[in-house]
């Protein structure tokens, strides 16, 4: 069986090559932070959970056995981490509001709206879209959001998304379609 590039790196790491993990770490840090950030809307949580996922990968070194594409495996762990986090916050409702207010600190906002080479007006409009998009994502059902983000931002194919969410490709198609319709409705002012 031919393994994908990242699976090969993980197998090399299993054989003791620590540099291979470094490559995976670099590659997946950014991917995971962005995926989890968009999923949960909290930059702080995104880093925390991304580290948890990366730690799970690191600690799986000895027991790792490739069953799917490496990224599919990682996104499954990450999606579960996000869903667990949401469950936890539903339970401790109070901490949700605390986290939401924490999100308003300038450091976090700086990253989400980092300076781009645009005129002030374009920049304002762009910021408006980013904020609106962030809000619109919050309204999507979890599985729609997961499928949409994995496909759109992580470049996961429908079959990879299906693997990460443990569902059929037909379900993924439907989830992504419904997510798109939902987002289009919420963001219609921005896509005229």
């Amino acid at each position, binding site marked *: 069986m031919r393994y994908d590039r990242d699976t090969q790196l993980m197998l090399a790491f299993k054989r003791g090559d620590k540099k291979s993990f470094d490559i995976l770490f670099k590659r997946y840090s950014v991917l995971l932070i962005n995926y989890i950030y968009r999923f949960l809307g909290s930059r702080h949580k995104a*880093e925390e959970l991304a580290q948890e996922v990366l730690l799970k990968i690191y600690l799986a070194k000895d027991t790792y056995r490739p069953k799917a594409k490496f990224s599919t495996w990682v996104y499954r762990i990450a999606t579960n981490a996000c869903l667990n986090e949401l469950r936890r916050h539903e339970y401790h409702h109070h901490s949700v509001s605390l986290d939401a207010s924490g999100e308003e600190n300038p450091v976090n906002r700086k990253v989400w709206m980092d300076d781009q080479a645009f005129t002030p007006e374009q920049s304002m409009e762009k910021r408006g879209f980013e904020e609106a998009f962030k809000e619109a994502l919050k309204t999507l059902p979890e599985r729609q959001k997961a499928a949409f983000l994995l496909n759109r931002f992580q470049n996961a194919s429908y079959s990879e998304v299906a693997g990460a969410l443990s569902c059929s490709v037909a379900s993924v198609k439907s989830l992504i379609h419904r997510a798109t319709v939902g987002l289009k409705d919420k963001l219609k002012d921005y896509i005229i």
Partner: protein
Amino acid sequence: MKCRKLKDSLSAYISEELSERQMSRMSRHLATCSACAGELASFKRLYERIDAVPQVLPSDDFEERFWRKVKDADAGSSSVKALPLFDWTLGFKWGVSVAVAVVVMVGAYFYLHTSYGDKARGKSEIAEMADIDRYLEFYKNYEVIKKMDFLIKLEKDKSLGDNNLPENRTL
């Protein structure tokens, strides 16, 4: 009805996730149906805007914090492997020491207080010697446990010294 069904496949059409036959069927329909073509255009505009949203980058200390967590996890798992019973927590070790000390003291108390009764019941001197031997054994075990504590501590200090962080890490 036909439009409705095809519209459900627009996202998949944009991502080219349809079969070849479905792709060409959709293309033919889009060429003649302005409603679906309009929907396709708005989907594409939405995706363009979303794709242009900038990525967030890890904080400067992201990697450093990660390796700290790895170190913690490694330290935890290696000493657990070495001596599972006695290295759960420092508190546990102290608990064991205190518990042993209490048992020894209570044992000594009962030994001294019951030896007269034993004598009265005609307990032989040999049996008494055996009792003393048992208590001495107990003390020896206590010493062994104390030494184990010391060794665990030694091992921990050592593992802190030669940490297993990979070299040449750059982000």
